[in-house]
């Protein structure tokens, strides 16, 4: 199925990926080709088939509710782009 350019813009916004104006046309064309290929699925008869999320049909395992991790804040923040006083820095959100 064809997808319109404004729909690609909406998805890109949902995915938080900026697409430059001069590239939006090509991206739209590529995504249209990919969706055209996966559209073969629509012809498949899947009535009554239980969707499969895990190849072994495994369910989430529970573990004992015990603390097993120690605090790694210094190691984790050492590789962050911007930190201060143990906090991650981002541009100001509230004026």
């Amino acid at each position, binding site marked *: 199925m064809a997808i319109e350019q404004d729909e690609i813009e909406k998805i890109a916004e949902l995915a938080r990926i900026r697409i430059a104006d001069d590239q939006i046309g090509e991206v739209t064309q590529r995504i249209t080709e990919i969706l055209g290929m996966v559209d073969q699925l629509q012809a498949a008869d899947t009535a009554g088939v239980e969707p499969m999320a895990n190849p072994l049909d495994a369910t989430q395992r529970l573990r004992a509710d015990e603390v097993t991790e120690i605090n790694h804040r210094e190691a984790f923040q050492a590789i962050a782009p911007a930190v201060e006083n143990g906090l991650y820095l981002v*541009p100001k959100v509230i004026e």
Partner: protein
Amino acid sequence: MHEHTVAQLAQGLRDKTFTSVELTRAYLQRIAELDSTYNAFITVDEERALASAEAADRRLSTGDVTALTGIPLAHKDIFCTQGIRTSCGSKMLDNFIPPYDATVITRFNQAGAVILGKTNLDEFAMGSSNENSYYGPVKNPWDTSLVPGGSSGGSAAAVAAMLAPAATGTDTGGSIRQPAAFCGITGLKPTYGRVSRLGMIAYASSLDQGGPLAHTAQDCAILLNTMAGHDPLDSTSAEAAVEDYTTSLDNRLEGLRIGLPREYFGEGLDSATGEQIRGALKELEAQGATLVDISLPHSDLTIPAYYIIAPAEASTNLSRFDGVRYGYRCDAPQNLHDLYTRTREEGFGDEVKRRILVGTYALSAGYYDAYYKKAQQARRLIKNDFMGAFEQVDVIAGPTTPGPAFGLGAKSDDPVAMYLEDVYTLAVNLAGLPGMSIPAGLVDGKPVGLQLIGRHFGEAQLLNIAHRFQQATDWHTRSPQTGGAA
């Protein structure tokens, strides 16, 4: 030294024919001499490799050794290595030095293996040609105008060019088996959950699985012995007991029933490749196996189901790359929205962005049932095909790829044409089955691979069949002309 298998090198180390430091130096020298041609490695840490080799030599002198103590290995740059940059082939992680090791790395470290370096890959493991790497394409050692396959192209090329005796890879839709086939080596994708995914950077979490690439099935068995096992830190890790995969390698094949799916030998398969595969199957028949015609009737749903499920999971997994906690951050963000959208625009390559967008679309309100749910239903039909087939046969065999390696640039402008390359490998991941590719012949001087598909947790049987095949044939001993010092 570099022409030996892992098994032979381990014997040499135990017999004191050479030390791990000598062995590691020999491989580091080959990498330094030859890798400018292949681009198989992203990062090589000589100092650290030699320090590990020295430690391994001390351990070897005590006799407290494993089959991998002192063996140098290359790791796909998707496995987190504490203190060694782990880029995943992306600008997004070009500066990322993990604060922890992947469980697979921890296990190899405990066994005393040496890390030679981190190998090139398609960005975030998304690709079938290794042309989607921020660090440039990998060249196929058999012919540097050809792709090595992907996404574990650097690992496959490193082993084929003998820059490492064996390597790790990951396989989400064929990313171990297809490059193994294109580079003339042996690769194993284990059952989903057999090898821990902790610290293996996620692409599609219900499909991703780590495994070995090596020259022989025996070497794959040796590596899998260390890699496999339950990991409480990976909630999808299988609790099934781990066998010693080396003990059943020599089992005889009499009575083995091998299913040949009609759908894997039809239109789309290069005829010369098909001939090589049929020739390889004759060898297994000569050893007492019976070839059985089978059908996997939902095979035509494989590519569409995969290219919804994998991008959907990728779009979720890759949302963590936001420029805040680690990795790339755009310059001078104007506000938080600008920080996110520009970091992701600049940090991700084209194919990664395409898959995130397709996945976001498939999961978005109004399309979820038509795409994602439908694909998950198709996934069950595909799995049921295999389960039905395994009532008739013990293993399934066919070509790993539709043909031998294609040229660099031949498909890189056409994502859909590239996706079709994975037609015989994707279903194995959707069904969570183990799969192998073993060298099965040459077409115009280019290697082709025989794919073996087993029941869940049937790795030992695949390795057994592959080993028996390799005892009777010499395709796995063929190697490209690489030059370099012996």
